[in-house]
């Protein structure tokens, strides 16, 4: 019999019952809750007279709607100007009190984006099943946890039963071998993968990311890669457990206590795919060939390297693709064959569950240090992923670097990734964004999003257009002075 994949192992460790109809009951270890996708689930429990099955499995924090300016946040919930946003955040608070669920409220230093907070607290552990009413729950797979987004009906189902009705996914492996170039990051890896396999390339699959370029990533980098598995169509992204995983978790708030640590580590070390495991699909990328990536269109698969150009729809053989490209270019206000470095930018957003962790902020700060945001940039903002990330960044002086360069330094939340709060793009504005989706209207009505890494976003803020961060030396010193405005 062939060996098991990591996904197979996690599936069988949580299998409560297989039913004859091709579905199974899977036990859920952790549910993360936020204000947008939970109110109707709690309401469903109330209407049916049900209580949560297991309180300690749940952890909640508001993130999508929270304002990010210090002035607004100083007022707590009362600082939320939009009455509908306020009701949603207040409803989460009320539901958590009513049902007895632990919540990091708006100004708790532990508050932040759920997918930053969970790992940071050790609430995400290897070998867990983790769900959340948010598609970027794939992030937690970086820890060798089986994690995926669910809808609100399923949020209610997990609250009520601690289980999910599931069908086993297919196994897909994406291998990234070789060494990344200087300045090329986890974000570039995952964008390159999506560019290769497309936004439906992983549909129906759990994608395990493997290969030495993945192994060489920090936990922050691995979370960035798994986070965007959903942008390749896969609900689940996974990375095997190794010493990097274990070192990250030591001493986290909810990590196993001293008495359980050794047993937990021994258990976690088995969370790798067996050498003879069979995958339904394998895709391999050469890390050395990956350039810093920039998306040019309205789907994450519409992406290319910094040295590239916007494609000409006429070059595609598939009519559906041609129409999609033409529509995307019209929406984005770009011309076929336009060079990526010639795209002028209006705003820059560094943040989101993809890229708002401490390492992301360090990489961005390297590019910003001693520089000034270009005059043509209307707004460049840095939004840390959690109160604790913000605190750490401030301890390292990163906030000063950003502020001195002309960036706004904000309070934690989802912010302009999806613009449910006041942080948004105006119609027609081009934004270099470290977020995960460049869909039409995603960052604001008529807004034009270009997905990039934190270093690429910060360098673009300084230059006013996209620049190749590989051309920028240590501390952001420019090798190509024509593209970087000196401070």
């Amino acid at each position: 019999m062939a060996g098991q994949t990591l996904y197979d192992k996690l599936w069988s460790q949580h299998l409560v019952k297989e039913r004859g109809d091709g579905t199974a009951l899977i036990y859920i270890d952790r549910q993360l809750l936020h204000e947008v996708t939970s109110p109707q689930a709690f309401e469903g429990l109330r209407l049916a007279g049900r209580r949560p099955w297991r309180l300690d499995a749940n952890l909640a924090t508001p993130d999508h709607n929270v304002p990010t300016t210090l002035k607004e946040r100083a007022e707590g919930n009362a600082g939320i100007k939009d009455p509908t946003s306020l009701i949603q955040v207040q409803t989460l608070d009320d539901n958590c009190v009513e049902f007895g669920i632990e919540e990091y409220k708006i100004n708790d230093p532990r508050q932040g984006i759920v997918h930053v907070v969970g790992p940071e607290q050790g609430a995400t552990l290897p070998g867990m099943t983790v769900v959340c009413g948010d598609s970027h729950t794939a992030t937690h797979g970086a820890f060798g946890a089986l994690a995926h987004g669910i809808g609100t009906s399923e949020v209610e189902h997990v609250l009520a039963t601690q289980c999910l009705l599931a069908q086993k996914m297919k196994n897909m492996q994406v291998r990234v071998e070789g060494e990344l170039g200087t300045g090329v990051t986890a974000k570039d890896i995952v964008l390159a993968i999506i560019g290769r396999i497309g936004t439906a390339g992983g549909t129906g699959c759990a994608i395990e990311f493997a290969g030495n370029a993945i192994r060489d990533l920090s936990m922050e980098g691995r979370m960035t890669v798994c986070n965007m598995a959903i942008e390749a169509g896969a609900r689940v992204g996974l990375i095997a457990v190794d010493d990097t995983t274990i070192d990250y978790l030591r001493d986290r708030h909810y990590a196993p206590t001293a008495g359980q640590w050794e047993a937990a580590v021994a258990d976690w070390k088995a969370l790798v795919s067996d050498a003879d495991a069979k995958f339904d699909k394998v895709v391999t990328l050469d890390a050395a060939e990956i350039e810093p990536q920039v998306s040019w269109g309205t789907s994450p698969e519409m992406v290319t390297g910094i040295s590239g150009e916007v494609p000409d729809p006429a070059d595609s053989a598939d009519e559906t693709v041609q129409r999609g490209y033409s529509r995307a270019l019209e929406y984005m206000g770009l011309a076929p064959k336009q060079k990526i470095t010639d795209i002028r930018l209006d705003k820059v957003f560094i943040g989101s569950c993809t890229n708002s962790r401490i390492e992301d902020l360090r990489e961005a700060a390297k590019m910003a240090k001693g520089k000034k945001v270009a005059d043509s940039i209307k707004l460049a903002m840095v939004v840390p992923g959690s109160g604790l990330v913000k605190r750490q960044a401030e301890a390292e002086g990163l906030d000063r670097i950003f502020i001195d360069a002309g960036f706004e330094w904000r309070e934690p939340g989802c912010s302009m990734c999806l613009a449910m709060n006041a942080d948004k793009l105006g119609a027609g504005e081009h934004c270099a964004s470290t977020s995960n989706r460049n869909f039409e209207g995603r960052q604001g009505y008529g807004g034009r999003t270009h997905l990039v890494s934190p270093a690429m976003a910060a360098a673009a803020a300084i230059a006013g257009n996209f620049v190749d961060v590989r051309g920028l030396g240590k501390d952001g010193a420019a090798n190509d002075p024509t593209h970087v405005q000196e401070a």
Partner: protein
Amino acid sequence: MKTFERHEGLVAPLDRANVDTDLIIPKQFLKSIKRTGFGVNLFDELRYLDEGEPGQDVSQRPLNPDFVLNQPRYQGASVLLTRRNFGCGSSREHAPWALEDFGFQAVIAPSFADIFYNNAFKNGILLIPLTEDTVERLFAEVAASEGYRLDVDLENQRVITPAGEIIEFEVDSFRKQCLLEGLDDIGITLKDEDAIRTFQDKHRAARPWLFRDSA
């Protein structure tokens, strides 16, 4: 959940691949704490010429005359015909809530995104995957014939065209039963309450660190 057995309805074509859930229902409408009322904002950015806000009187908003659902011939449509990877992106269940509230009961496409697929069935919307070629042909038939309707028969897993052509489709047996009988998932799962408790006890004994209250 409402049942779905057989439905005969007007078909509206949305000729676009990779329709994401942000496009189906933009984020500003996710601030509602209810499950209903999303239909007027379905495809908001395509449907209206201005930027929508929650709670607006949509009858005062300028409609985009080019958008398919605004065209007179597609008024009252209840079957949506579209392209591959429909429903990609965010897990928001507001997307099927909006489709259902608008009046769509079935969606036909070459493929659907995973999370949307689950969410749609949980709200009584039947998703029908057909081959690219068949979908292409249906687009042509809809364009050629005003008032084009399809008869969707879930029990026998087939779609019947106005010309009487029968197109078979796949649906997994569990979801089919749930739609036919209008079953409540949570109620079904709780019938296995004992099995869940037995599993949980074993799981806790083997991996106590997964339980915050047993640390």
